[in-house]
């Protein structure tokens, strides 16, 4: 199975106002294979989101190496890193993170505005496909304020998938939703990523969300601990890789 994401001995800390340095992520090793889903759980403030930003190339690790889609990112400059984020990674953030002045289709098309140029006709087709995949084909022209919370998060999922990335990183994707809506959104997220063969890493404090992933890892004092091993792989099912 191809490894989509490999993190080796990754460290990341933050400078506190007092001047003291706080290590949020310490010696993290993680391998996520194509088609696999992984949950990272932990207490609030345990560094889950920090880990996600490092894995998603939104910030550089203080130490260690991250390989995404086969590319070692340690020595890459801003342009190739941006290209990797654009083509290989899809993000789903908490609180939807849609641009209020753009409609659903325009929000979904955001990643297509960067990286390799995509002709207008193809932009429209891929946007429509992505929205259809999350069941929102009819809401393409709706502004975020005209959508419910669940619909907004599904638009965010469509945006994450519109470039057909090999890795989807989700930060508390259901954190702002009620239980029933969260369930539908999560089903959409796992279903769509699975159909497209993308790896999925979900950061959550919600145990129920975590249990729907192939593997569950816990971030404790900055160290990643395996909580639940994957089930035996079966044909057509998600498969897991070792930490």
């Amino acid at each position, binding site marked *: 199975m191809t490894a989509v994401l490999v993190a080796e001995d990754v460290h990341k800390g933050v400078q506190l106002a007092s001047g003291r340095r706080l290590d949020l992520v310490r010696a993290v090793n993680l391998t996520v294979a194509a088609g696999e889903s992984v949950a990272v759980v932990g207490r609030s403030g345990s560094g889950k989101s920090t880990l996600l930003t490092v894995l998603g190339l939104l910030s550089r690790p203080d130490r260690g190496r991250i390989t995404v889609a086969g590319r070692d990112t340690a020595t890459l400059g801003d342009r190739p890193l*941006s290209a990797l984020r654009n083509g290989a990674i899809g993000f789903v953030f908490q609180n939807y993170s849609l641009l209020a*002045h753009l409609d659903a289709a325009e929000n979904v098309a*955001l990643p297509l505005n*960067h990286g390799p140029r995509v002709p207008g006709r193809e932009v429209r087709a891929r946007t429509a496909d992505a929205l259809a995949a999350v069941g929102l084909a009819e809401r393409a022209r709706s502004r975020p304020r005209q959508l419910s919370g669940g619909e907004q998060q599904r638009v965010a999922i469509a945006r994450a998938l519109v470039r057909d990335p090999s890795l989807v990183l989700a930060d508390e994707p259901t954190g702002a939703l009620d239980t029933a809506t969260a369930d539908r959104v999560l089903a959409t997220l796992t279903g769509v990523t699975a159909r497209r063969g993308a790896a999925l890493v979900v950061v959550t404090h919600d145990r129920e969300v975590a249990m729907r992933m192939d593997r569950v890892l816990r971030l404790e004092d900055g160290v990643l601990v395996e909580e639940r091993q994957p089930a035996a792989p079966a044909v057509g099912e998600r498969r897991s890789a070792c930490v």
Partner: protein
Amino acid sequence: MRLILEALRDLRAHRGRTLLSAVSLFVAVIAVVGVSTVGSVVQDVFVANAEQQHGRAVTVATRLPHPVVARGLPAVLTALDTNITRAGGSYLLMYQDNAQVGAEGGAQPQVVTLYSGTPGAVRRLPVLHGGWPAPDPQTYPGGLVLNQAAEAQYGGVGTELSVQLGRAFPAYTQPVVGVIADGVDAPVVYQSLLGALTLQPGVLPADWSPELHVHADGAGESVLRSAVLAAAADLGAPPTGLDVRRADTVGGLLASLRSTRSGFLAVAALTLLVAVVGLLNIGFATVRDRTRELTLRRATGATRGHVFLLVLLASVLVGLLTALAAVLLALGAVDLVVPHLLARGSAVRAPAFPAEAALVGLAAALAAALAGGAAPALAAARVDMAQALRD
């Protein structure tokens, strides 16, 4: 193009801040454009008045002493044509004579300016009615030209005036063919020298000594002085015998206007600086508010350069659109308001498109937008994405 559309969309999305930026910049740009435009108009007014009374920039003048003109007017005119007119210059030979002028027998003492050459080329003398008689011997005596005060006293174009140059000569009648604005409050009657001599040969006194004014577009004082001395030399005058002086006052006037204008421009520049500080303030606040949005753009693949350009372009577009509005306002004021403020008979023409002011305004707006937009754009490009997602 895609980036420009994106920036325009961003501006629309943040209407309030865009409006604040635009207002702060508009005040500054209108100050710069206004000072520049008003400065041009005021300068034109002062220069026009100076050129109306003393000659265009550059004009030199001298009094031709009697021995120089003793060879007779035709010889004098030939020397002037040879050395000045054929070299691309213009001259105005003037001799003022005390005369009796009046309509229908009501003659009164009046100074008549006898002239030769092209007065309008040497001094800025707007023609209000009719025109100067053609300098064609076939049309002599040609008629009289009055200034506004003389028009008020004797009547306008078409009026027949009796003119008596010297008590020893009989009066003759001439029609008024033109009215000009010469900036002189007292009545002045202009009569062509050759026209007067056609009507009254020998009317010039034996010791007449005319004033000569010479101007050529683009020619400096020394060139003009040389031309005058060459003409005088043709008439047998010694090179040191003439006092050729600068007649126009435009040089000194421009120097004093320049310092006044610099003061106003300094105030405008200060306004611009305040606008830049305002732009920086608004820009940083906007970037702070948009941190999450900018992080989202970076997460979806926007490079630092793209985010920098996006924010900077928005600032530049506000600057250019604001400058355009300010320039249009200034243009409207210049085209619609200023012409009504100019007095009839003013030597000042209604100002044309203030291209310099427009360019200064555009440049000022662009500079302010770049100065006020660059730092926030840099901050936007360097936004801490991890921090933004934690907040």
